């Protein structure tokens, strides 16, 4: 998670640095244009300004892994960036292509024909490297064939921009099934890093060239120093702020998860209390009391089914004073067994109403059941017992997810029994997989304490809070899990990071204005 964040910060810093250098180039050309106002000079000046703007926009575009849904829609941001980028390259290329090259002796090259660009929307995305390449070629022609050798660094920078643009295009091939290619093209993969390194190189080459001119005059020098300083301050502030923000979101998430796990524990406890209240009410039903006293099994069977359906329990048993099942709501023919060894039934036979969680074997995983018992009395005499049971299944944890938006699970022993977690097919629940993390086993299952931290379930990384699920004797029989995908936490923080990046970019642009006036004012004062 943190590596992705650092890569994103690197992307932000590189783009803003590039934007600054391109802005410096714009400043250099506009300085020249002010002296000699030609259309070509205007085109070139605007071209560098647009390129600078495009990299400012680019700095605020986060990878999809960090930001699932962008504030301004990812496609809008990319579209805006491409628009300014292509427009910038195009204007620079037009200016270069329409300029007469001062030929060297014996060189027969005059105007270079302006190629008619067949603009195709489909090819819109590949325009950037093509236009950057054309600009690089024309700078090279001017430097190598023409007399303007001093623009060689600009040509080199544009060649590097071309490479960077080409590398960024490769992300279109991320759907490959070739592992090597996938690793090369993955977000924050080798190609991604290479693209940013090349971009940084291009920026350094162009920066060295442009600052060589700008630093010869006092006012632009001062202005650029102010701008660079402002950029540095903004970058440091943004990095520290977003880093602290992410750490805070992570800590907050873990604390919130622990609270939510306790809410789930409370919900289970409430369900137990509700179960006990229900079973007491059922046991006090006069019709049921009479049925147990008279042992009218047929009537009790119907009553048990009726209670079962109305209360939506999984099982409802009525026992006589010998502990024999004389009615079973869910299967009225399946009676006659004895439950005298059941610890809860023993408590009911002692006159106590009680409830608790038990685990029983299931097909793939243990089944967690809430059971509650109450004695059936005639006066003070205990004549039978009512037992209700409800399976704590996926529907229960689904309800928790609906209320909190978090993933919730219940483990029977260390095996996932009921869960909202889905396998990769988005249909199958991850029921049956085991928790083998030794920290969790020691803390939750053995020591009966809470656990808070990162876990891996079904190959996905989660921030999780785990609480022991206790039986009536306070012995851990399983675990309550509430978790949130780690990537989701990063993406939640991603919104704030995106907003911070955009605000920083806007403020950086705005800070240019006071920088300009301050530098001009100081210059005038010195003069």
């Amino acid at each position, binding site marked *: 998670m943190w590596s*992705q964040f650092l890569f994103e910060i690197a992307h932000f810093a590189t783009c803003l640095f590039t934007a600054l250098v391109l802005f410096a180039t714009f400043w250099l050309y506009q300085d020249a244009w002010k002296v000699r106002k030609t259309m070509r000079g205007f085109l070139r000046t605007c071209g560098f300004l647009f390129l600078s703007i495009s990299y400012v926009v680019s700095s605020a575009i986060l990878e*999809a*892994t960090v930001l699932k849904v962008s504030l301004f829609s990812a496609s809008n941001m990319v579209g805006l960036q491409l628009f300014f980028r292509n427009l910038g390259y195009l204007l620079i290329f037009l200016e270069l292509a329409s300029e007469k090259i001062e030929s060297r002796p014996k060189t027969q090259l005059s105007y270079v024909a302006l190629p008619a660009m067949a603009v195709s929307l489909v090819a819109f995305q590949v325009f950037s490297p093509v236009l950057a390449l054309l600009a690089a070629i024309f700078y090279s022609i001017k430097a190598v064939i023409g007399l303007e050798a001093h623009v060689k660094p600009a040509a080199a920078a544009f060649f590097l921009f071309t490479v960077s643009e080409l590398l960024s295009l490769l992300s279109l091939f991320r759907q490959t*099934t*070739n*592992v*090597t290619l*996938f690793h090369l093209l*993955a977000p924050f993969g080798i190609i991604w890093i290479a693209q940013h390194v090349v971009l940084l190189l291009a920026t350094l080459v162009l920066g060295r060239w442009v600052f060589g001119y700008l630093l010869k005059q006092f006012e632009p020098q001062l202005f650029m120093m102010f701008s660079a300083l402002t950029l540095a301050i903004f970058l440091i502030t943004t990095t520290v702020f977003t880093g602290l923000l992410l750490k805070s979101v992570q800590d907050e998430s873990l604390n919130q998860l622990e609270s939510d796990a306790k809410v789930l524990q409370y919900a289970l406890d409430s369900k137990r209390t509700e179960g006990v209240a229900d079973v007491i009410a059922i046991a006090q039903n006069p019709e049921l009391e009479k049925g147990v006293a008279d*042992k009218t099994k047929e009537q009790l069977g119907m009553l048990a089914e009726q209670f*079962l359906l109305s209360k939506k329990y*999984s099982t409802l048993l009525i026992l*006589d004073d010998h502990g*024999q*099942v*004389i009615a079973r*709501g*869910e*299967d009225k*023919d*399946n009676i*006659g*067994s*004895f*439950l*005298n060894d*059941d*610890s809860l039934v023993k408590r009911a036979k002692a006159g106590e109403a009680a409830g608790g969680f*038990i685990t*029983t*074997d299931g*097909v*793939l995983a243990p089944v967690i059941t809430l059971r509650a018992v109450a004695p059936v009395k005639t006066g003070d005499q205990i004549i039978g017992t009512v037992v209700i049971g409800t399976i704590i*299944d996926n*529907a229960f944890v689904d309800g928790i997810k609906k209320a909190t938006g978090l993933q919730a699970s219940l483990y*029977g*022993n*260390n*095996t*996932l029994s009921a869960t909202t977690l889905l*396998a*990769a*097919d988005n*249909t*199958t629940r*991850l*029921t*049956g*997989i*085991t928790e*083998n993390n*030794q920290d969790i*086993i020691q803390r939750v*299952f053995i020591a009966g304490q809470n656990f808070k931290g990162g876990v891996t379930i079904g*190959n*996905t990384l989660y921030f999780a809070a785990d609480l022991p699920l206790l*039986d009536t004797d306070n012995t*851990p*029989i399983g675990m309550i899990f509430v978790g949130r*995908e780690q990537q989701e936490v990063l993406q939640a923080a991603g919104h704030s990071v995106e907003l911070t990046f955009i605000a920083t970019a806007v403020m950086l642009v705005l800070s240019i204005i006071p920088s300009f006036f301050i530098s001009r004012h100081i210059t005038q004062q010195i003069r």
Partner: protein
Amino acid sequence: MTKPLIRTLFLLILILIAGVVLPTSIQASVQSCGMNVSPTTTTRDTSTTFSFSGFASYSGSGVMWVRFTRPSANFTITSGLSTGAWTASTNGTQLTFTAPSQTDLPGNFTIYATSGGSDASSADWTVEMSDSGDGSAAAGCDGTLGVSISGSNSVTPTPTPTFTPTPDTTAPTISNVVVSGVSDSSVTITWNTNESANANINYGTTTSYGSSGSDTTRSTTHSLTLNNLSSNTTYHGQIQSTDAAGNTASSNDFTFATSQNTTTVTVTTTVTTIVTPTPTPTPVPDRTPPKVTLTTELNRVFLTAPVIEGTATDNKAIAKVEYSIDDGQNWTDADHIDTLGEKKTGFSFTPLTRGDGIYSIKVRAIDTNDNETETETQTIIIDRLPPAIGGAIFSIGPQILQPSPNGSIVTLAGLMPKLTFAAVGGPTSIKLMVNDQSVPMTQNIQTRLWSGSLVGAESVTYKLETESIDDAQNRTAKSLSPVIVLPDGTVSDVLGAVNGAEVRVYYFDSQAQDFRLWGAEQYGQENPQFTDAQGRYKLLLPAGTYYLQINASRTRPLRTNIFTLTTSTPIAQDFTVIKKKSFHFGLLNIPFPDFGQNDVMINLPEKSINEADTNFLVGESFPSFNLDGVQDDALLGKPTVVTVLTTWLPQSSGQMSILEELSHDQSVHTLVIMSQESTASVNVFAKRGGYSLPVVADSDGVLVTPLRVTTLPTHYFLDRKGEITKVVSGVLSKEQLEQYVQENL
């Protein structure tokens, strides 16, 4: 002069090389080991926590691999735990603990295992240890490893034992201290403890005591007689009881006096004051037991529980008549007693039975003086339905193997699935024949489901035949879905199988858009895993996107393409790795630097499977039925999807949700038949799930045979006339259901 020098140098180089190379081929090993298991007995159908502790003697720095094999097929290993870095994986038969590096044995290994439904004499666990992560050159362990099964567990669902025994640090509680049998030289002191503990009394004429009496036998009731006491003397006493864990409870000081038949005991706080009254002489009691006879002829087969009648007589008066259906373990009152309190009475009762089965009936009469008489055990057999099994599901660990659309199951030789199904008609045993080899099936007393693990190592198609037998010796045969066992995937090079090649599986995390090592441990598998001497590996991957990488010594790494699985799928591809080029110098083989790798396309097995044909019902009318008021004529007029399902199937709620969505389409009938389940439990299931589509219970499983249900769920697609046009097995998505409906309009 120079030649000897060169020779010496060459010799030195050889020695140096040998010094570097040879030690790598010498393996440290486990020389001996010993293990003891606790407990050594368990009851039927019980989930038991077995604790293993012992030692190992090794020449290396520890042990990396410990394997426990169950004592017999009567046990199924469910999971295991240990402290430290040890991780457990099990296939139900064996459980393997592995550590990332050689390490000392932990204090104990804990294994959870479920015992079967029948008694079994003591059989030994097999414990092996190795200092190698792949278990090579494992040593077998000695020790007390026998475990037997005897006695029944309660039929009630009981809480599963906790994962690791919590150390007992609680002292017993002493209560009900009674002094009796007082004479001029002795007294008897009795007391109870709330847990099993030994008995000890310190006594004397002062609170310093000085004398003691003890009984080392652990019990919850204690009695110690103190002799050689002085007459007419007051003594001070203090009771101590120590439990098995060494926790000792002591009572406060109390006093007692000799030469009196009645004595007063004063015990503060935890000790109760008890006065033992002098027995009052009573008249000679009535010791004549009543007589009880049954007039109903039993020991035969009934369709339903019969009314059982009889008479009870006594010389005084009959106080109670009770019966038992479990050979005297539990008793309940007879339904009707003619003249209670008289010397002779008639009685009758209809035993409460749990459907088809064999019941051991006993009747007892008790007179007013608590004398009682029991009848001999009489057996009744209730046989309403022939034994019949329903559709089955196949699972490996937490993964359910989806049948292919034609109903066959595909797996690997080393990953044989567990088979689970329900049965009606009270079968007492079910034989599963796997290509003429018998596999024991056991019934889980809690879920009442039958299950067993298939065995077999050959890569053939296994035909599964079952025979259910009930108490009336009715036998029902049924064929289940065939299981196609693919040969394990292998890694080889030009010379043949590669031993010890590392097979790694990488899983695609769609959120992070990155691959990471697949967490096989949670699925009871290993990743990475190392090939055996035959170059074999075993993988059953759940749904997801993956790629595999194979690394073998001195070969170029091999990588598959990225592939996506929509359901659990065995991987059985044979990979051929290419040796890196090397330079041979005598015995030395020096590889050239080679950082390249080979790519290979994955070949998933499902594409080449074409076995059983389940569409034999196509063209036939759907069988007539009347279940919970729904009849077969309700299926006419529109295309219909009938799904046979059960509530215990783990995917049932998911499949129900999809069918519920389909049911909103007015142009299609949908019907769900819950096979071999009671109407009430199906109603609860439907109500809890909030399903509005018709769901009916086929409690007797009458449609299982005519519909030839072998796996669950099974979907039947019907045209407007009620004719079956297609039969498909497995969980289907809404799109698949709609597609099949459209195809069969």
